[in-house]
């Protein structure tokens, strides 16, 4: 196998002990960087979610429906079934 592919299992593509040792010194700092960088989109997502959940759509006007019309609509709905 050419190149650094030799550092992985040819079938499972699992890292060999040698590659684990190569990466070990960088593991904690890389993980920390991953958490820091990953927290940016997650934070944006979470903020958006929380912000939108507060919205009750009270500012959207709902047109008034009279009792007669409501009864008619209910009947139509029942007939459809």
């Amino acid at each position, binding site marked *: 196998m050419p*190149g*650094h592919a*030799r*550092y992985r299992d040819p079938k*499972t*593509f*699992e*890292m*060999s*002990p*040698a*590659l*684990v*040792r*190569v*990466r*070990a*010194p960088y*593991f904690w700092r890389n993980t920390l960087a991953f958490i820091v960088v990953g927290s940016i989109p997650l934070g944006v997502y979470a903020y958006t979610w929380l912000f939108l959940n507060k919205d009750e759509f009270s500012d959207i006007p709902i047109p008034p429906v009279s009792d007669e019309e409501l009864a008619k609509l209910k009947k139509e709905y029942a007939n459809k079934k």
Partner: protein
Amino acid sequence: MVVSRVTRLRSVRIESRRNASFFKKLLFLDDSDSKDANTKFYKWDESPYDDIRTRAAFIRTKALCPVTKKPVNFVCPYSGIPTHHSKEAWEQDEEYHSKKRYELLKKVNLYEHDLRSGRQFDEFVFPGEQEHDFTINMSTWDTFFYTRDFNPMNTEFNLAAASKVLTYPITMASVMTHFSPYNLQPHGPITLEGLRSLSALRYTLYPPYKQTRDTSAVLFKERPLRIFILGAKMEAMLPGYVWKQFGYLFPDSKFEIHFIGPECYFNPDTRSFTPTSEPHGRPHVKRYDEQLTLHYHTKYFHEVYDMGDLFPFDPYLDIFFLFHPGFQTANKIHWDQSLKGLLESKCAVFVTGYHEEDTRRELLYLQNHPLADEIDILMNQSKNLFGSTKLDLVDSNPTETFQANNEMFAFRGKRYHAIKK
């Protein structure tokens, strides 16, 4: 379509297992690898290899028990090596048990058997030229092997076998490269004087304005860089392709490696260390290739120095390496005379030792020497990151283990600019 989904599912499963295993391994939750190293354990007396049995017999005749000071006659059951006079002495040796010396000795035992096991030694398949786009990371053996694209050193036995050979060229490269893992004080062992010496060498190795292709800009490099290895013995037996691994790290420079010492030339015909047969004290020269030549001077350094063939020395183009010189051993008289030349050359001298104590002894010799005032320390004593990881044993004192090039320091003759009064 079904097939593709199955393979996709399988690959997803493999991938998740792989990532999990990486995290597990690095969080120390998975230590399955450490259990893999179970090669067969032999006692040295019962070893299937002749030379190991002979060595065990040699230890029995030469070594003295650390407790009773009587001849060694008891095989430590943990390590399989004869270490003490009797079982009682072995039990009484508290230092041996509290410091777990037997674990190191067991490793010595396993390494020796592994080297003779006749397994496939993939670690000795060395890579060729370094591709231009890939930088070499010299911070540890592992990163070096990975970035130089060696075969993976998966077990400690692979690493031991490879590092025992490569420790000499790579130790040299690790101090000379501009990506050296040794930093300036206080972040590392290099002193300010050391930086001056190393900067001079790096000026030669990585000449500025090289991109211009204007040959007049590199006038200062009219000869190859010379590396002197004093008191060479084992390192002088290494074949050219091992030294070429050093050459691959500096592809734009040419090198002469000078082995100096009475035992630096191994004659393959007589199978012994002999003086070379060159006339007029000339070195025996082996030309490995365009970049690298190996010179063997079978004399002491002060003799070669007094002959004057090596003059002039130039701190920009010369560097000395003393791999475990043993200043205070039987050769002390020769080292005393050689030191004068070493200091006069004003070139950097790097010294390695077998372990911390050994190296401190070498440093102490320099500090107590009459010429101590002439010495600048370039590098404080520190662990050599590219020492051999193969543990070895002192036959005359089998409870003491050592590793080649384990510790390192550097010195140089004082050289300051003239000050107008």
